[in-house]
C-alpha cells in the first residue's frame, strides 16, 4: 500500500507539475528540481546497492521521490551549507535538522537512506525492506501530511486568499515542493473545509471543557439562551482573522461539489452546540431546535461579513435579538398549545352539559 501511495504521489507530482507549468510559472523551478533529483538519484544509487537484498523497481522510484523531497528540504532548510557535495554529509545534515518536527517524513527517509545516520535512532529500519510504515510511529499518513500542509497554508490566506497559491506557499514552509498541491484535487475547497472542520473541533473542545467544569461543580450551567449566544459568538470570532477573505471562502463552500461536506460540518456543529446546551430531546423538537439555531448562525455570519463596527458589536447585538426572537416564539407556541387545549376542554364541557340537559347522555 505504501509503495502504491508513493508511486501515486510521485506520478501526481509529475502530472501536477506539468499541468501547472502554464499557470504558475514554476517551469524553471521544476526543471531545476528535476536536475537535482537526477543528481540525488546518482548519489542514492550508491546507497541503494548496499541497502536491500531485493531492490525492487518501485523501491528505487520511492527513493527517487524521497530524494527529490529531501533535496528541496535540504535547500530550503540549509541554504548556507548546501555547497557540500558528499552524499553522506548531506543526508546526515538533513537528518539532524528536523529534530523538532517530530513525525516528519524527511527524518524517516533520511535515516532510511543513510548508513551513517543509523546510530541516531536504533530501531529505525535502514533497509528498503519491511517499510510497511503503518505501525511505525514516525511514519506519517497522507491524511496527516495533508492536514499539516493545510494548517500551514492558513497563514498565507490573508495574502493569497483561499486559493491553491496559499496551499503551495504552506507546502513550501514545510519544506515540500509546491507540486505537492497536486494532492488536493479539490484545491481551495479542501483548504476552506479543513479550516471549518478545525474551527468546529476547537469549539467542541471549548464546550466539552465547560461541560466538564459544570459537572465537577466548578461552574454554573448557563441558561440556554445565554449558552447558545456564547457558543455562536465564540465560533464566529474564529473567523475574525480571515474576515477580509471570508466572502470568498463562503462562495467556495456553496459550490455544488462542496455542499454535502459543508452541510455535514454545519449539522455536526449545530448538534454539538445543542448537546452541550443540554438538549436531550428525542422527538420533533430535535429537528426544530437545530433548524432554528442553523438559521440564527447563518444570518449572523452574513451580518458579520459587512459589519464595520468596533469588535463587531453590531453582529453580537443582532445575534442577541435573533436568539430572543426564537425564545419568544417558543414561548408563544407553548401558549398557543395551552390555549388550544383549554378551548377544546371548554367545548367538551359545553357538549357534556348540552347532552345532560337534553337527556342524551345515557350510558348503555
Amino acid at each position, binding site marked *: 500500500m505504501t509503495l502504491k501511495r508513493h508511486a501515486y504521489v510521485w506520478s501526481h507530482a509529475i502530472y501536477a507539475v506539468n499541468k501547472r507549468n502554464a499557470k504558475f510559472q514554476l517551469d524553471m523551478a521544476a526543471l531545476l528540481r528535476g536536475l537535482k533529483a537526477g543528481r540525488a538519484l546518482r548519489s542514492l544509487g550508491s546507497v541503494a546497492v548496499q541497502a536491500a537484498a531485493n531492490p525492487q523497481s518501485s523501491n528505487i522510484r520511492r527513493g527517487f521521490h524521497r530524494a527529490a523531497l529531501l533535496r528541496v528540504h535540504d535547500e530550503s532548510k540549509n541554504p548556507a551549507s548546501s555547497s557540500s557535495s558528499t552524499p553522506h554529509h548531506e543526508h546526515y545534515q538533513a537528518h539532524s535538522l528536523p529534530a523538532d518536527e517530530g513525525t516528519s517524513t524527511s527524518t524517516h527517509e533520511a535515516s532510511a537512506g543513510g548508513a551513517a545516520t543509523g546510530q541516531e535512532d536504533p530501531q529505525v529500519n535502514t533497509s528498503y525492506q519491511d517499510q510497511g510504515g503503518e505501525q511505525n510511529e514516525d511514519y506519517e499518513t497522507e491524511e496527516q501530511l495533508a492536514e499539516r500542509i493545510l494548517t500551514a497554508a492558513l497563514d498565507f490566506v490573508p495574502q493569497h486568499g483561499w486559493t491553491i497559491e496559499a496551499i503551495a506557499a504552506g507546502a513550501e514552509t514545510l519544506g515540500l515542493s509546491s507540486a505537492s498541491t497536486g494532492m488536493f484535487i479539490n484545491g481551495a475547497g479542501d483548504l476552506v473545509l479543513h479550516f471549518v472542520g478545525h474551527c468546529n473541533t476547537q469549539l467542541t473542545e471549548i464546550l466539552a471543557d465547560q461541560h466538564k467544569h459544570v459537572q465537577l461543580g466548578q461552574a454554573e450551567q448557563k441558561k440556554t439562551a445565554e449558552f447558545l449566544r456564547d457558543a455562536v459568538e465564540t465560533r464566529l470570532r474564529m473567523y475574525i482573522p480571515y474576515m477580509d477573505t471570508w466572502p470568498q471562502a463562503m462562495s467556495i463552500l456553496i459550490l455544488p461539489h462542496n455542499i454535502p461536506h459543508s452541510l455535514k460540518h454545519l449539522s455536526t456543529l449545530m448538534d454539538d452546540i445543542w448537546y452541550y446546551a*443540554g438538549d436531550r*430531546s*428525542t*422527538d420533533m423538537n430535535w429537528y426544530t431546535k437545530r433548524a432554528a439555531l442553523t438559521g440564527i448562525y447563518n444570518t449572523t455570519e452574513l451580518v458579520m461579513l459587512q459589519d464595520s463596527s468596533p469588535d463587531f458589536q453590531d453582529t453580537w447585538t443582532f445575534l442577541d435579538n435573533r436568539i430572543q426572537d426564537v425564545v419568544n416564539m417558543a414561548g408563544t407556541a407553548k401558549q398557543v398549545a395551552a390555549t388550544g*387545549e383549554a378551548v*377544546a*376542554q371548554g367545548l*367538551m364541557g359545553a357538549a357534556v352539559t348540552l347532552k345532560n340537559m337534553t337527556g342524551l347522555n345515557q350510558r348503555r
Partner: protein
Amino acid sequence: MYVLNFVKMRGFTSAVILFRQLNKGINRSKLTECLPRYSRSYAVIPPPRNSEEKALLAAMLRVDHAGEYGANRIYAGQMAVLGRSQSGPLIQHMWDQEKRHLQKFNEILAENRVRPTALLPIWNVAGFMLGASSALLGKAGAMACTVAVEESISEHYNSQIRALMELDPEGYRGLLQIIKEFRDEEMEHHDTGLDQEAESLPGYQLVKTAIQLGCKAAIYLSERV
C-alpha cells in the same frame, strides 16, 4: 376534519374525545425532553469502533425508538375506542409496558446522541389511526392488530439480536439484554392477542398481512430517514 371522515362514530362527543387523545399524544412526547441530565450511572452501549458501526447502531436505535413510539400510539388509539369496554384493562396493561419500552429507548437515544426519525409525526397519526380503526372492528379487530404488529416487532428484534451477536456479543451485552427482554414482552402481547381470539375476526389473514406490510415499510423508512 379528517378524524370525522375516517371514524364512523356517533355523536360529536366521541370525535372530541378522539381529538383530545390525539393532542395528548403529541404533548406527552414533550415531557421526554425534561430528562435529568447527569443521572446516567452506566452506559448501556460501548462506544462504536468505527463510523460504519456507528451508523449501523444509530439506525438500529432510531428504528427501535420509532417502533416503540408507534406501538404506543397504536395502543392509545385502541384505548380511545375500547377503553371503557371489557378489554380495556388488558389493553391498558399492554400499553403501560410499551410506555416503559419507549422511556428506555428515549434514554438510550439521548445518551448516545442518536437522531430520532424525522417521520415521528407521521407515525404519531398513523399509529393512532391504525389502533382506533382496528378497535372499531371490535375486540377481535383490536387483538388481530396487536398480533400482527407484535409479530412484526418480534421478528425485527430477532434480526437485530442476530446482527449484534455477529458484531460483538460481549461488548453489546447490555443492549442485547434490553432487546431480548423487550422482544419477550412483545411475544407475550402476541400470545395474549391470540388467546383473546384474534383469529375469529373475519378477514383475519388479510388484515394481518396488510398491517405487517405497513410495519415493514415503516421499519425500512425509519432506518433511513
